[in-house]
């Protein structure tokens, strides 16, 4: 059972307006695995989410991304866990800055995590266990210029 998480940041990322993130979850194993289809974004230490993110300065382990809200979302239902065949993938998009505050414009590295069996998540046969992390994705976050 192996999942690959790939993340990318859109070229139109601007501080403080938008940081579009595209995430793909691919079954890299040789057997089907169940994954929560909704791929809801949240925080590492929270329930009701399958994805969370961390942002660091380049080459540093310092965590500079901070949660910006308290959200109340139910855990995914068992029927929302869908089988991914080997080589098959799920994808989603979210705006990082609607969930995390960053210190300001600059250069960063993004890491996205998938965890389908986190706090309060249902126990689903064949579901991926544990946390799967993307590689660190460098991205530049220029300041919004408003067409100037």
């Amino acid at each position, binding site marked *: 059972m192996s999942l690959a998480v790939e993340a990318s940041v859109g070229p139109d990322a601007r501080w403080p307006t938008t940081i579009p993130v595209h995430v793909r979850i691919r079954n890299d194993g040789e057997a089907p695995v169940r994954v929560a289809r909704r791929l809801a974004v949240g925080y590492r230490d929270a329930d009701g989410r399958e994805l969370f993110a961390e942002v660091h300065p380049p080459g540093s382990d310092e965590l500079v991304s901070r949660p910006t809200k308290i959200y109340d*979302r139910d855990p995914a239902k068992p029927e929302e866990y869908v089988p991914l065949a080997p080589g098959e993938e799920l994808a989603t998009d979210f705006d990082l800055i609607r969930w995390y505050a960053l210190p300001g414009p600059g250069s960063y590295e993004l890491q996205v995590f998938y965890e389908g069996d986190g706090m309060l998540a249902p126990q689903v046969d064949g579901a991926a266990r544990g946390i799967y992390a993307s590689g660190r994705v460098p991205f530049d976050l220029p300041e919004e210029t408003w067409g100037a």
Partner: protein
Amino acid sequence: MVEPRSGMSTHTHAEQEQVAEAPVPEASSAPAMPLPLVQAHAIAAGSAQMARYALSRQPAPAPAPPAAGALNDAQATDAVAWTNRKYDELSIGIIQHIAAVPADRVFTEATAQAVATFQQTNGLLVDGKVGHQTLTAAFPERVGQSGHDQLVHIVADLEDIDITTTTSAVRFDPTVAVRGQSEFDPSGLRVIKLGAPAFQSSRILRDTLKAQLLTRAPAAAAAGPVPSILDDTSTAIALIVDQVALSHPHSIQALSVLVGGPRITAWNEDLVQRLAANQQANGRTGDGIVDVGTLEVLVRQLIANNDNNGAIRMIVDFFAFDDMDNLTTIYFDPTETANAETLPLSSGEENQPASIQVGPAGMAQPFAGLVHTIEHEFSHVRLMRQNETDIPTQEFLSEAIEMTSTITPQEDIAGFMNDADRGEAQWQRMPVDRQIRHRDRFLEVREEVRRRHAASTAAEQATNQAIVDRWNNVVLPAGPPGP
């Protein structure tokens, strides 16, 4: 009209300051002093207020407070008087967060000095007053922290823009590419959607709000004939009860349109008669009185009619949820992916004005679940006002309110046990000092878990046994309660 003191401005000429500010003082070039030095300085200078301020500072993460002297006494006094004329307590709380001082909602000379430091740092006119230039300098960080609702509140407050009387919601909408758009709830109340470009500056936000308020609501549908269900005495009694049950003008307007009447914002006999007819049409006794059962029917109808803001307002109005004067706004957000959320958070000090957004998933719950979701978010708003910085503690206490509430309808056993599941999980994540502080609350909630479990069917008991076992197995920490 004044210019910034350094090259930090992003304003166009047309955006220049309109709010009169004090003469430009000499800006201090002294670096911020460490906290002990500030305390010593304040005490040595005989400034009790400054000393209290310095002593009340939390050591992290806010920077050290400003050195005394950025403003002279007259300027600081003037800034205090000006701010207290201009701003309400919520806005002052927002200003205090911008200035990185404790958000006690009282704007003092010390707060003015902190604002002056913020102005110095950003190369602005240093006068201790938060006008458009100072607000604009704070915009990027607030926007980056999902603080749009705070910015809307403070700009509307600064400019006395009425965004409540005829408007049910003003909300940031990332899908809106222009500065602003308006749409209207079925009740005729305006919803202003603000795109990212509206948050370029304080003045652009002001102008966008003013422009959107000029849009006119579509004409109301013609009211149908007034039914005659109740006699005069019953109508008079219902009128008295209903004026207490639903008093907010938006609730009454949503109701009046829902029951086929004219758009009105205050109860009258005709509205009572229309409500009675609506009750009868929905299988209820047509007594014209808004009780919980009628509220549920009305909320379901409003949601089905796409008047989600009306439904939320009616629930908040009926149950009179307490926000400890800390709520900037509550509204339906169709882009929300959670049931609901409370925001914004900051780091280390949560005591800042908050807003609540309810999403489609929240509205789709059974009535009791929706009511509890809103009740839960109000708990967060109060806990933020009380500066509870630990999120698991906030979550435990908010789940506990749902599970033991005596004013809202009970959820079914599945909904209750879902709350119990979350509440216990959050308890396990709480720091020991918080567990000690809230031991009695835990015991109270555990009794309710046991009671609801024992009162459920054998099949339900079996389903939820593991949750109850976890509550029973919790070993409470010993020790004296903390402060």
